[in-house]
C-alpha cells in the first residue's frame, strides 16, 4: 500500500542540490527542475550506485557536426559512480532509454513536498 511521506519545505530544495530523504525504507533523491519537483530512487539501474549523489547538470545536445550545445541544464542527474546520465523527470537513461531509474510521484501542498511510495 503506497503511503505519502513528508520530505521538506519547497524552499529547502534548490536546483543543483537535491534533497536525499528516507521514504519508507528507501533512499530517494528529490530534485527541483525549474518550478517542478521530481523524485528518483537513489539506486542506479546500471550498477546499483548512489545515483542521486552525482551532479545535477545539463548535457550536450545531439548534433550533426562538431558543435557543442550545452542544454537541459539541471534536467539531468549524472550517476555518482560511472557517470551515466538520467532524465530526472522520466528516470530514463539518455544513452539507452530502456534503462530506467525508478521514479515516484511528488506532491506539493502548502509549500510542503511529499513523495508517495
Amino acid at each position, binding site marked *: 500500500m503506497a503511503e505519502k511521506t513528508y520530505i521538506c519545505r519547497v524552499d529547502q530544495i534548490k536546483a543543483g542540490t537535491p534533497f536525499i530523504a528516507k521514504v519508507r525504507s528507501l533512499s530517494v533523491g528529490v530534485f527541483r527542475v525549474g518550478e517542478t519537483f521530481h523524485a528518483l530512487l537513489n539506486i542506479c539501474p546500471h*550498477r*546499483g*550506485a*548512489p545515483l542521486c*549523489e552525482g551532479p545535477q547538470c545539463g548535457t550536450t545536445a545531439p548534433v550533426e557536426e562538431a558543435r557543442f550545445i550545452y542544454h537541459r541544464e539541471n534536467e539531468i542527474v*549524472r550517476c*555518482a*559512480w*560511472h*557517470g551515466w546520465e538520467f532524465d530526472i523527470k522520466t528516470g530514463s537513461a539518455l544513452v539507452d532509454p530502456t534503462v530506467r531509474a525508478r521514479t515516484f510521484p511528488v506532491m506539493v501542498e502548502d509549500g510542503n513536498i511529499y513523495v508517495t511510495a
Partner: protein
Amino acid sequence: MFIVDCDCHNYWSSATVLEPYLSGIWKDMFIEGEKTGPRGSFPHGHRPWFHPQDFSRKDVRPETEADNYRIMKEKHLDKYNVGVAILTGDEPIEASTLANPYYASALVSAYNDYQIAEWLPKDDRLMGSIIIAPQDPKLAAAEIRRLGSHPRMVQVLASQGSVKPYGDPFYHPIYEACAEMRLPFAIHLGGHGGVNWNAVAPAPTTFFWETHAILHMSAISHVASMIAHGVFEKWPELYFVVIECGVAWVPTVLWRLDADYKALRKETPWLKLLPSEYCRRNIRFSTQPLEQPPNVQHLWSILEAMDGENTLMFASDYPHWDYDDANTLHIPPSWRTKVMGQNALDVYKRIPAILTANAA
C-alpha cells in the same frame, strides 16, 4: 568468502603530505620547483586526455586528509566486507612520466615511506605496494631491495605507461630484485604522458572515453614482450600482475602469439613453452573494469578460454569512476571463491602469513 581487493587507491588531498619524507635537493625541488598545478600537485608529465568528469566517484568527497581513509573504510572496506585491500596509491605511479629519473625515484621513495608510515598502521586489512620509477631500473631495483623485506609490502608496482615494453632486457634488474625479494611485479593503467608518449598506436587518440577503452594496447605489448624476452624463463616463479587493463582481450592475443611463435620460434630460442603456457603460469589479471557485453555468456566463454577461474583476481578500483563492487561482479558463480580472494592469496604469498599473525 574472503575478499582480496587488488586495486584500492589510497588518495591524498594534497601531495604536500610527502614533504616530511623528502630531503635535500628533492625536498627543495618539490616545494620550490615547478609542478603540474598549484602547490599540492604531484609533479608528472601529464597525458593528452582530460577526464570530463574527473576520476573520483562523486559520493567520495574528502574534506580533510583523515577523510580519505574514513570514507574508504565506510564506503568500501566495511560495506563490502573486504578482507584485504592492496593499496595502489594514485598519482605516485605517474612519476614514471618524468624525464629526470633521479627526481622520479626520490618521489616514489617518499611515497613508499609515507604509505608505510601513514596508511598501513590505520587498518590491518591494508597491504602496500612498492611503487617504482621504472625509467631507471637500477634505482628501481635498489628501492625494491630497500623495502622488500617489509612484511606488508606485497608487490612492486609500476605504471602501464613506460618508455619501452617491459620485457626489454633494460628492465631486467627490476625482475631480478623482485625475484630476490619474492615479490610480484604489477603494472597499473596510467603513466601515459611525458616520456611515455606512445600509450596508443599509431598516435594519440582524441577523446577520453575513446582512449580509456583502448588503453590496454600497452598491456598487450607488455604481455607479449615479457613472454618473448624470456622473463619467465629467467625468473620462473615471478608473477606479473596486470591491473585495470581489462581482460576480454587476453585469449585472442594469446591465440595470435601462440600461432606466430609456432611458426617463428627460431627468433627467440630461449623459450621452452608456448606463450599461452607462460601466461597461464606467470601472469595474472585483475578484473576491473570487467567487460560488459549484452550477453554475459559471451564474456564467460572468453574468460573460460583464459582459465579465468585461476588467472583472474578481483579488483574494485575504489574510488574511481569505473568502480566494480564486490557484490555484483559478473563472473561465473562457481568461480567466486577463487576470483574474489583465493587466487590473490596464491600470488601475494605474504598475505596469508600476515593474516595468520593477525589472527594469533
